[in-house]
């Protein structure tokens, strides 16, 4: 009898679930199959790096929804195939093969340089254009090995040189401590900065990695103080940056803190609060006041109810460029699309963007920003 009652409950549940799934099935069946453009969107959507991946997926979805409402690209609706690579190379290759087998026309992703490097060869063999909003590894473009790769973010070395010039020429300081987060992005950047400073004749008194996610950075902060550095360069993302800078300020160290565009993010100011004041960060020329960027941010707030996260605008721009190139090329033909990407200028939230021969974005200028009164303002 008891069992019967349980079974009844279960049956009811199964009934409900099957009812729900049926509705969904009908909706899917209605979608036309022919005459669509398949846009692969890949990145980390779960795990510890999900916070860098999810905003890009949102961006892609928003752009595609807008374009579809206007009738799609060349009259074809755009469909997103979103795949999670957890920022792991081995998962990224599986994702890449899956997207290639699904006859994807173009890819917006991946998020991490490591995952991108693992996947890019597979896309290259299949003649699929890849545009990443956040993979900054220098080799991806500079090596010339990946003609199908584009990005709407600038490579590591450009940012590092910017930091070096700023410190040497503007701040006129030459004792530097360089800290990084041991990650692909942060450490790569830090190494370029170190080499740059050494060439420029500055003395790098400290070059160290901190463990991301640690509860406390007081030891490394004390070490920076002990080293006598006049300026701190940090390569990495905003969670660690805000922890380090708040601990520095709290113990009364007010030497300049210079970081990268992983930190030039409003989340940093939000999290570090008053300690963010005066922090410098390199980043693409500020366009957040431009109408395009304002519209993109507003759209995200409307749809998802919160401020967009990291690389949102980059991904927004990447998707726009990609779809524009497909439209101008008139097809999803590989040669035509890459040619269009290299020749067409697109108005994006990052400004007017096009791409050079190697796939780096033209038109995304760099500048140094400083937090003044809770907002990033460009340094003159």
């Amino acid at each position, binding site marked *: 009898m008891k069992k019967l009652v*349980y079974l009844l409950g279960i049956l009811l*549940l199964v009934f409900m679930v099957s009812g729900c799934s049926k509705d969904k099935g009908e909706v899917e069946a209605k979608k036309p199959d022919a005459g669509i453009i398949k846009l692969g969107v890949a990145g980390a959507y779960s795990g510890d790096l999900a916070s860098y991946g999810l905003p890009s997926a949102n961006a892609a979805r928003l752009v595609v929804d807008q374009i579809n409402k206007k009738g799609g690209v060349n009259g074809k609706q755009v469909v997103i195939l979103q795949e999670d690579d957890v920022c*792991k190379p081995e998962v990224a*290759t599986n994702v890449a093969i899956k997207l290639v087998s699904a006859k994807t026309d173009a890819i917006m992703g991946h998020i991490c340089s*490591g995952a991108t*490097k693992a996947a890019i060869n*597979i896309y290259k063999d299949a003649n699929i254009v890849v545009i990443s909003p956040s993979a900054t590894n220098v080799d991806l473009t500079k090596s010339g090995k990946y003609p199908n790769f584009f990005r709407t973010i600038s490579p590591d070395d450009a940012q590092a040189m910017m930091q070096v010039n700023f410190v040497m020429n503007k701040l006129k300081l030459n004792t530097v401590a360089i800290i990084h987060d041991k990650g*692909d992005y942060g450490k790569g950047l830090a190494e370029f900065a170190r080499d740059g400073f050494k060439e420029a004749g500055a003395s790098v008194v400290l070059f160290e990695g901190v463990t991301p996610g640690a509860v406390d950075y007081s030891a490394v902060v004390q070490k920076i103080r002990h080293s006598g550095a006049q300026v701190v360069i940090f390569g990495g993302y905003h969670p660690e940056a805000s922890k380090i800078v708040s601990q520095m300020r709290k113990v009364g160290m007010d030497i300049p803190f210079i970081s990268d565009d992983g930190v030039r993010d409003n989340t940093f100011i939000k999290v570090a609060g008053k300690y963010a004041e005066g922090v410098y960060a390199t980043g693409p020329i500020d366009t957040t006041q431009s109408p395009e960027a304002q519209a993109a941010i507003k759209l995200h707030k409307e749809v998802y109810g919160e401020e967009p996260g990291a690389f949102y605008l980059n991904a927004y721009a990447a998707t726009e460029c990609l779809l524009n190139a497909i439209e101008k090329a008139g097809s999803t033909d590989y040669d035509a699309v890459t040619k269009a990407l290299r020749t067409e200028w697109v108005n994006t939230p990052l400004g007017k963007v096009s791409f050079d021969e190697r796939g780096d974005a033209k038109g995304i200028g760099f500048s140094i920003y400083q937090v003044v009164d809770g907002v990033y303002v460009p340094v003159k």
Partner: protein
Amino acid sequence: MLVRREFRKSVAVSLWFMFLTFPIMVIRINTMENTIEWRWMNMAYIGAATFFLSFLWRYGMERNAPVKNDTTDSWQERIGRTFRETPRVYYTFLAGIAIVSVIFPLIFSAYQTSIMTTALMYVSLGLGLNIVVGLAGLLDLGYVAFYAVGAYAYALLNHHFGLGFWFVLPLSGLLAACFGILLGFPVLRLRGDYLAIVTLGFGEIIRLILENWNSFSYGPSGISGISRPGFFGMDLNIHQSMIYMYYITLVLVIFTIFVVSRLRNSRIGRAWIALREDEIACQAMGIDKTTTKLTAFALGATWAGMVGCIFAAKTTFINPASFTFMESAIILSIVVLGGMGSIVGVILGAFILILLPEYLRAFSEFRMLIFGASMVLVMVFRPQGLISRVKQHYEFHAEETPSGVPR
């Protein structure tokens, strides 16, 4: 009466979960603008879902109650016995599996082949760890370290000296075995969870060294452009080389199954089992604890090293991010979930844990949620693992020859 009581129980459960999930599910705050979003619909969903799920849960618990198990055989056991005891069924089944696994890449897409290769790699990893955890009873939470050793061995040797896959494959196994012994020595005296934490530490140390020692391992940016194994000098495209990798892995899995099943009934295998069951009694029986433990570590590590080598060849790019603690936890879960000590169990466990997240991609953001929940559920409802190990019986009959007749 009963209906009402069961109903009341479910209502209580659903109310409790509505209370429990209230702050996380219903309220969302925006710390920047100090606004609060109330999502009351979520509470209704949770209430309804837990109300019905609690029926399911209690039904499962009822069925799982231990009363039934010792009298009558469950259907799983009956099936298991049919397989073991009727050779015709057993061999037909084996032949079926063999045919399917051979023609698999020819009928399915490149993506299916690729994830199946990954699953097969984890079968080998699981079987390797099974030697350490399932047979010798040594809880190893840093197994991924040996996997990393194998992968980096191939990547570095290929990068610097251009050595080929087939040459490095046994070498990386050997190298990993050396690391296994290296780890084995200091932890000989430790047992249980102390051993677990030290192995965890060992895994982290290897990963941190790979991350920090740039001039050796190229640090976090990893090594790219690792060459795929050559097929008699022919150039293979991606799809072909995927198929080729699949067969290589398949052969390795068959080899692993063969070796592990032979090992289990060997002198050393029985020594491992004795060690697992009772360390002191085992020593009293004259088994050398040191060599037994060290061989377990070394042999377990060998498979990880070889699979690591295949891994590097398959992805053609490696960086330390692939060798985190979570990876060790997944491999351990394969062993435990499938059924410790059972080869079929490990195979099943690997397929479930590796293919499940891939096939759950349809659920996108709920993927890992379902994955975690199913790990809990499988353990709760089948704590022995999916396939529980069959204890070997040795029976002595006075009329027959005095030697043991294994059944």
